[in-house]
């Protein structure tokens, strides 16, 4: 080991100690991310089940009872109330007792028997419009199942077009398959940001950064000393979350580990770079924390983690090009669900590498400048 390497080793040891020496810091780095993975892995889903539904049936015939059985016989819907009067509908929805009200009119069975179109009214609480449209979609698919059975049983003419819908890469359209790989990126970003964004700011506030600058270390060495612990902790946590995603949440992993880890290293480099850049600008830890927030929150919102980038306006879509999480999410989902090879992920690797190099360069430059 040369003297240089030995000196760098000492610096790294100091940085790791600064992060891990006290029990609370260690706990904060390990405990919450794992807890969050478990909680969010189960909570973060757009799939609905046990949707509370109230039924208002004015029809005395057998057909309406059959239709109701179609609704209550599934996991998706759960009958919470039987309405007997028109006036109760509004209260049921207003008070959020039911998300959906199924209203079957007086002539339902008679119309069906006479082969006239029988109509059913569905009222949905639209306060959360996404939940509302998903619930409505479920209800409509139950009704079209009912229609198909009815047509077959009564030998009615078949409708001319039937759609057969298949979803590739996620046949049952489980949103957990989409969200949990996203959590790998999300939590990794949060952990590396909190580790790095406060690291330089803390030394500045305590005055030890000036001491570091008067040592024979070059700014590049100081940068390595600050960047490597963040990357190492990020890599370990990301790997652990990944293992949990595959073995606990049973998310398929069809691609190559190499393709994913290449992306992960570049992603960590970019997020450590952003964190250190923020830290190098901050004078107090509060500023560092604020900077981390001002980056993490938009980065999560505009990453395609929960809402698709394609739905955003053009200008915002352009802005997301600066967001390393955006690229990593494509990689982690592409590799896990679709099995994309590294060659088709090049357009994701390169931007992250560029973001990493640019931010690390700015951070190094700022280390020097701030002293004066």
């Amino acid at each position: 080991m040369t003297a240089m390497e030995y000196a760098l080793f000492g610096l790294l040891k100091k940085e790791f100690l600064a992060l891990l020496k006290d029990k609370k810091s260690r706990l904060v780095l390990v405990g919450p991310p794992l807890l969050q993975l478990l909680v969010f892995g189960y909570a973060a889903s757009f799939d609905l089940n046990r949707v509370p539904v109230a039924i208002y049936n004015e029809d005395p015939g057998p057909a309406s009872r059959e239709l109701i059985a179609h609704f209550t016989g599934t996991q998706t819907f759960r009958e919470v109330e039987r309405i007997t009067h028109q006036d109760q509908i509004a209260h049921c929805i207003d008070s959020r007792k039911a998300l959906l009200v199924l209203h079957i009119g007086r002539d339902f069975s008679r119309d069906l028997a006479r082969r006239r179109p029988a109509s059913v009214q569905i009222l949905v609480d639209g306060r959360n419009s996404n939940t509302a449209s998903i619930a409505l979609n479920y209800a409509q698919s139950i009704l079209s199942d009912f229609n198909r059975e009815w047509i077959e049983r009564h030998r009615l003419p078949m409708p001319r077009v039937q759609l057969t819908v298949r979803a590739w890469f996620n046949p049952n359209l489980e949103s957990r398959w989409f969200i949990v790989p996203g959590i790998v990126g999300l939590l990794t970003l949060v952990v590396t940001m909190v580790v790095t964004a406060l690291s330089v700011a803390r030394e500045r506030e305590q005055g030890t950064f000036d001491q570091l600058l008067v040592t024979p270390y070059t700014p590049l060495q100081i940068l390595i000393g600050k960047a490597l612990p963040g990357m190492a902790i990020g890599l370990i946590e990301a790997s652990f979350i990944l293992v949990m995603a595959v073995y606990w949440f049973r998310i398929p992993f069809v691609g190559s580990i190499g393709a994913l880890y290449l992306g992960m290293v570049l992603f960590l480099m970019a997020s450590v770079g952003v964190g250190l850049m923020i830290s190098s600008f901050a004078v107090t830890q509060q500023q560092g924390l604020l900077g981390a927030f001002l980056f993490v929150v938009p980065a999560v919102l505009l990453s395609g983690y929960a809402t698709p980038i394609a739905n955003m306006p053009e200008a915002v879509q352009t802005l997301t090009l600066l967001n390393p999480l955006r690229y990593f999410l494509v990689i982690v989902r592409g590799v896990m669900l679709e099995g994309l090879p590294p060659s088709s992920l090049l357009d994701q690797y390169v931007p992250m590498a560029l973001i990493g190099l640019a931010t690390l360069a700015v951070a190094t430059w700022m280390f020097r400048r701030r002293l004066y």
Partner: protein
Amino acid sequence: MNADSTLSSSGRRGLRLLGLMRKEFLQVRRDPSSIAIAFLLPLLLLLLFGYGVSLDAKHVRLALVADAPAPATADFFAAFQHSEYFLPGVYADFRHARAALDRREVSAIVRLPQDFARRVEAGTGTSVQVILDGVDANTARLLSGYIQGAASSWLQRRAAASAGASIQPIQVQARIWFNPAVRSRDYLVPGLIAVITTLIGALLTAMVVAREWDRGTLEAILATPVSVAEMLIGKIAPYYLLGMGGMLLSIAMALFLFEVPLRGSLWVLLLTGTLFLLTALGMGLLISTVARNQFVAGQVAIIVTFLPAFMLSGFLFDIHSMPTAIQGITYLVAARYFVAILHTVFLAGDVWDVIVPNAIALATMAAGFLTLAARHMPRRLG
């Protein structure tokens, strides 16, 4: 003895409190990041969210393939071309369409079989193949609904053109209350006010006691006759004002910039907002007093405030559909109660059945966090 001794004891308390608050205000002024937290954060987040984040899939790229092009297939495709939901492109064959799906250029393929035109003319049933890119399951499901809708409106048009053709036995009349246009912005923006207030409240106070530990100024305060209650009020009052300013800014932006309707009353919003802000401030103070250093306090603040408010509050993901154990945890997330109130007051109106229980929950949580913070507030250096 100095001049102070001539004042009554309550007067001295008042002076001490004023002094403490003045000190906090000065600290706010010296490090403008507190003001940035209160006003820049909501501005930035609301702009990003209001303009940037939408769950409404519009202009989705779609590949249309007819194995045997004919007037009937072109007629079917026309149903997609005149919809604002789709940006359809007709592909020559399935191989090309499939390649486009693999490259993520299109989100779905609609494929009409060889005998489509013949069977449609003959009146026998035919099946249309729809292939969705299922990676984003939520969008895929919405998209599937849109495609079904386009296909069935085509069917209805055909049925109307040729009398006596088959129709569906049951027809659905669906109505979505409170948000008939299904604009996701109308529920995301009010919910976001809860997320932002959580952030402001917790971030502002998470650092303030920890900072005194870090800088060693706590000893100086403990040496004064300041009581725990005075210290608590001194720490909270300035940040409460800042936080309310941030919340008012958010509400104003929701109403005037994003044109979210306010169907309930403003005073309900402000009153419950106060309760929620006190909860968030109390949470931040508690973190700050327990963590004792800014590094840990900052990390804990991000992890226990922002992420749960984002994921477990019902702001984005439906609480009823979560597993029972997770639903239990959501009761500990203050944002959940405020999100319920915000959605209702903005979109539905003053529904007391929703507002009162949630407001009581908020008041309880605020009292709980503030008491805990007071109890953990350092009395001596240990």
